[in-house]
């Protein structure tokens, strides 16, 4: 269970990232966060595993406050939270496999991992994770020789290999083709269902959100402006999130008149 109580975050340059957020996310939920670019979606995810410190408020993971944890306790909380980054955050100069294996360091003593040796089982877990995102054949290639989508998939594989109980995914499919997008989202959904893993995903496409989420949270300028089930997320509600009516053509429907497009 993830609980956020009155969480606010202001960046050093004065930008408000989050404003007084209160949320309760139950174990096993599949939450999709939507909102405009710059609404604070990434900031929210990064606060949950405390990659960025919040300015005020408290965040509890399974009853333990991550905002006040430190040392090995903080590490063990984090080990149970897998994260997929918007900008991939791969270690460019090493192989894909090493990148994925690095997701498993939390399970081993520092000494053992210092020499970069992982048990055979870990290597298998890593290769399986790569297989899930369809790039096992790139396992021994350096990460900087991959295409954008391939890099994103490596970052997903790393989070999968971590075998966490919570997964935070920051636009995990932004650079993926529709096929891989579906595969990845299906995979997230499958582990969410089968293993009851709490999943929080930032997504840009409302349709995709409606397909997969059990709950949708809408952010706008750092504030929660919508929080409800998929069925509650009507077009009117979405209009609030995006600050104006979402037109039919913004739902990425395939049948539409091109001349009717708005914003020009």
């Amino acid at each position, binding site marked *: 269970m993830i609980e956020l109580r009155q969480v606010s975050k202001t960046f050093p340059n004065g930008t408000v990232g989050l404003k007084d957020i209160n949320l309760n996310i139950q174990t096993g939920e599949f939450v999709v966060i939507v909102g405009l670019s710059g609404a604070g979606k990434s900031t929210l995810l990064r606060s949950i595993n405390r990659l960025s410190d919040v300015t005020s408020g408290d965040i509890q993971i399974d009853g333990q406050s991550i905002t006040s944890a430190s040392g090995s306790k903080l590490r063990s909380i984090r080990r149970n939270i897998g994260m997929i*980054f918007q900008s991939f955050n791969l270690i*460019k100069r090493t192989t894909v496999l090493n990148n994925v294996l690095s997701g498993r*360091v939390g399970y081993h003593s520092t000494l053992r991992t210092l020499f970069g040796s992982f048990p055979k089982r870990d290597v298998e877990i890593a290769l399986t994770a790569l297989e899930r995102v369809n790039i096992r054949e790139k396992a021994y290639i350096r990460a900087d020789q991959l295409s954008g989508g391939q890099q994103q998939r490596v970052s997903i594989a790393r989070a999968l290999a971590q075998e966490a109980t919570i997964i935070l995914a920051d636009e995990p499919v932004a650079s993926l083709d529709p096929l891989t997008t579906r595969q990845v989202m299906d995979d997230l959904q499958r582990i969410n269902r089968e293993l009851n893993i709490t999943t929080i995903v930032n997504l840009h496409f409302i349709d995709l959100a409606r397909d997969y989420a059990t709950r949708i949270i809408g952010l706008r300028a750092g504030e929660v402006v919508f929080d409800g089930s998929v069925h509650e997320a009507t077009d009117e509600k979405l209009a609030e999130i995006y600050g104006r009516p979402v037109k039919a053509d913004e739902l990425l429907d395939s049948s539409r008149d091109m001349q009717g497009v708005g914003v020009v």
Partner: protein
Amino acid sequence: MNNNNHLSSSSLTIRLRNLRKWMIALFILVIFIWSMLGLDYQGFQSTSKVVSLSILKGFMHPDWAYVYLPEGEDLLRELLETLVISILGTFVSAILCIPFAFWAAANMSRLRLFPGMGKFTLSVIRVFPEMIVAILFIKAVGPGSFAGVLALGVHSIGMLAKLFSETIEGIDPGPQEALIACGATRLQTIRFAVIPQVIPQFLSYSLYRFEINIRSATTLGLVGAGGIGTPLIFALQVRNWNRVGVILLGIVLLVVVTDFISSRLRRRII
């Protein structure tokens, strides 16, 4: 209009920033002129022509006989010793400076004071004159190449660790975040996210330091710590330009060859 307002206020900040840039440039210029005025330029000297000619003549006719002498202590063997001292000295400092580098890197610690202390320590090590470091080690292990290795090794910690720590400060924080998010310990984060990023630069700086160390042989020569430095100083003191010429040629060749090899290495690593 709101937009116009916004524009004018931001162009004001730009103008302010430009003003500040000019002020700083002016400040640097003033300091530069102040120091140039202190230089006391006296122009070419009356003896400069004869002397330069005789130096040039010496360089044109290097003392080839010195290159190889059957009984030893010739150019080749002194260069070899210099090379060996540099290799070991670089090795010592490259190893020793790693903990210092992490200590001094601002992004390796949440506190401000801790890296500050590291930086201060490095400054202290750096201002410690090479001469004194050499004397210290000569007192410990006696004069000779080993003292030279230790002096080079310890003296260069200050610089190498400074360059290393700046490299660490310049890395992409993304991968580190990824590791932290996996619940990695600090050492694990360093091992998997920092080291791979800094290794090329580390090696590059170590190789660069290696080159400087070869050059530092002259300084070590000052304290009799072995290598080509002592013969060079002696030759300079008695104005034996032919000897100086051949020694210089030897050093240049040595550095060019090591530079060639090291740039090869660098390219393979990056």
